[in-house]
């Protein structure tokens, strides 16, 4: 058994295992490095799409697009999620981390895998997009890097489960695990399915690239690959919902309105969220409508039910906490007087709103079997997932970074004014990226396309003028988002490496009229009118937009 040494956190009173702390730091730093690289590639992609700028030549555009997807969609997100898993198990449970040596093995495997795949892409022989659909073939080490990364991440997820077991055996907590840890458990369970599917399909594909297997069936590949590709985004959803709850708890002392409801919503994720991998196969040949309808709807939209529950309970728990603090006037005093100057709060709340309105609604609409016909592989798709994984997950992860730096890295935030504006700039930029790409997609513009003027094509075609405007606005939004991303990287690097050491307590809680009452949320006294108004607006927007798209669909050529 390895010797664990602890320090006691002066702010929260939690016991922090120093081995876990080092692993959290390493994974978080690696995550930010890949965010910086991938974000830069993303900016060049957006500037190339902007017809008036058209920055990169075609081969570099497709290369940058491949690298962008890989670095941010996989490496940044999963590295950060591993940090969140270690935090939610070891730190929140007051427990030593299981097998820290294996934690380092996992870290170095993931890092090596990420670097190998990046090198493969930059060498130019693996411009196959993030999805790498066969029969298009990448260099051997492209797949090898991905496999190493996936196996490393799987080991890290195993350490999370091991830590849960140790915490229970050594009775480091009473009763059930905290809700945030339960959310992390949800993410970890989905991660097991995700990474195992990835290994199952990438290992034969790797053998195929070495000539040991003659063919990979493109449909079969796509089916299994998306069990990784889409489910990895479902790890994100679970993880960032857990982060929302964590930030609400740390800043406001907020308690879940009901443990039962919030955990039940996570259970719906565990059972059904991963079925939505079918979203990518709705206009594929060879799969029945029964399979498509059942899977794309997460078994009758039960996972969407989970998200809609979190959409009520997260802001609801903040509202309840704020009202207890005395911000009880009208519908929205609790929200107006929230700490909007604290990037942890502003980032978290924008993440919540934009994930729901931009990413959530568009995802369900696009994942409707028939409506997918008018959206598949258009720019609507990246428009949607920039609403989920960037406005939702990335912004939430950025927000909690502002709490992890003082608590885990024990450094003060450098450049606090830059940090204060960072979530707004990034959030605004990402909202623009998401909306304008969805707009262009509605006009039919193809994703992954270097030249929407078709200048070199043997036939004539041009997209509508409005699409050009959309892509120009997308470029401008990408500049804003990239600046916001740059601010984040600068603040993180400056704080982590040059920040003043934190001594004693960190002031986390929002300025309060009255101190939060320790136990509330009893079913008789709950009052959350502001949140109800917000979810009401959300629901109306959802229903209207859903039926508008059925109307669009009914205008296209009849087909059966």
């Amino acid at each position, binding site marked *: 058994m390895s010797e664990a040494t602890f320090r006691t956190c002066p702010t929260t009173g939690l016991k922090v295992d120093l081995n876990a702390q080092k692993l959290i730091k390493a994974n978080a730093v690696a995550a930010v490095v890949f965010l910086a690289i991938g974000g830069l590639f993303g900016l060049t992609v957006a500037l190339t799409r902007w017809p008036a700028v058209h920055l990169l030549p075609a081969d570099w555009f497709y290369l940058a697009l491949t690298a962008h997807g890989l670095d941010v969609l996989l490496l940044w997100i999963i590295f950060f999620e591993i940090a969140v898993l270690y935090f939610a198990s070891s730190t929140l449970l007051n427990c030593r981390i299981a097998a820290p040596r294996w934690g380092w093995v996992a870290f170095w495997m993931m890092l090596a895998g990420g670097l190998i795949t990046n090198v493969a892409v930059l060498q130019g022989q693996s411009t196959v997009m993030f999805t790498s659909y066969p029969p298009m073939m990448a260099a051997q080490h492209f797949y090898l890097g991905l496999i190493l990364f996936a196996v490393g991440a799987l080991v890290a997820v195993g350490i999370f489960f091991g830590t849960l077991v140790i915490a229970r055996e050594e009775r480091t907590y009473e009763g059930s695990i905290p809700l945030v840890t339960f959310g992390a458990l949800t993410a970890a369970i989905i991660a097991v399915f995700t990474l195992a599917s990835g290994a199952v399909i990438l290992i034969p594909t790797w053998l195929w690239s070495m000539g040991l297997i003659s063919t990979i069936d493109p449909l079969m590949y796509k089916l299994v690959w998306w069990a990784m590709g889409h489910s990895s985004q479902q790890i994100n959803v679970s993880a960032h919902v857990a982060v929302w709850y964590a930030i609400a708890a740390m800043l406001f002392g907020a308690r879940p309105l009901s443990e039962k409801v919030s955990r039940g919503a996570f259970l719906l994720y565990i059972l059904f969220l991963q079925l939505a991998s079918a979203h990518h196969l709705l206009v594929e040949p060879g799969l029945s409508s029964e399979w498509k309808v059942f*899977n794309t709807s997460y078994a009758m939209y039960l996972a969407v039910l989970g998200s809609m529950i979190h959409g009520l309970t997260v802001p609801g728990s903040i509202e309840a906490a704020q009202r207890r603090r005395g911000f009880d006037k009208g519908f929205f005093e609790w929200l107006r007087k929230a700490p909007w100057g604290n990037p942890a709060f502003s980032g978290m709340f924008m993440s919540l709103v934009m994930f729901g309105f931009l990413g959530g609604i568009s995802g369900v609409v696009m994942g409707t079997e028939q409506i997918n016909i008018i959206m598949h592989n258009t720019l609507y798709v990246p428009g949607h997932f920039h609403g989920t994984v960037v406005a939702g997950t990335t912004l939430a992860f950025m927000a909690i970074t502002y709490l992890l730096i003082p608590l885990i890295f024990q450094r003060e935030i450098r450049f606090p004014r830059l940090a204060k504006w960072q979530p707004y700039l990034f959030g605004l930029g990402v909202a623009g990226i998401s909306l304008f790409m969805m707009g262009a997609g509605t006009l039919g513009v193809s994703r992954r396309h270097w030249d929407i003027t078709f200048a070199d094509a043997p036939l004539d075609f041009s997209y509508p003028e409005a699409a050009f405007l959309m892509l120009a606005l997308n470029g401008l939004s990408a500049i804003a988002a990239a600046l916001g991303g740059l601010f984040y990287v600068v603040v993180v690097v400056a704080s982590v490496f040059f920040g003043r050491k934190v001594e004693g307590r960190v002031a986390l809680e929002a300025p309060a009229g009255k101190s939060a009452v320790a136990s509330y949320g009893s079913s008789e006294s709950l009052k959350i009118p502001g949140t109800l108004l917000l979810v009401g607006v959300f629901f109306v927007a959802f229903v209207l937009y859903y039926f508008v798209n059925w109307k669009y669909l009914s205008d296209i050529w009849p087909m059966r």
Partner: protein
Amino acid sequence: MASDQKDPDKERVPFMQRVLDNPFLLLFLGVTIPTVLYILWGVMELTQIPVAP
């Protein structure tokens, strides 16, 4: 006996709470359900595609 039933420290933990407190049961469900409904069902359909006439 009757007072034992009301004592929250001795009352049996409800079934659903025990399910939610069991990470490995949840892991089993979370991996099995998509494997059967998404992957296996999908693979079955793909292997049954007929050859073009």
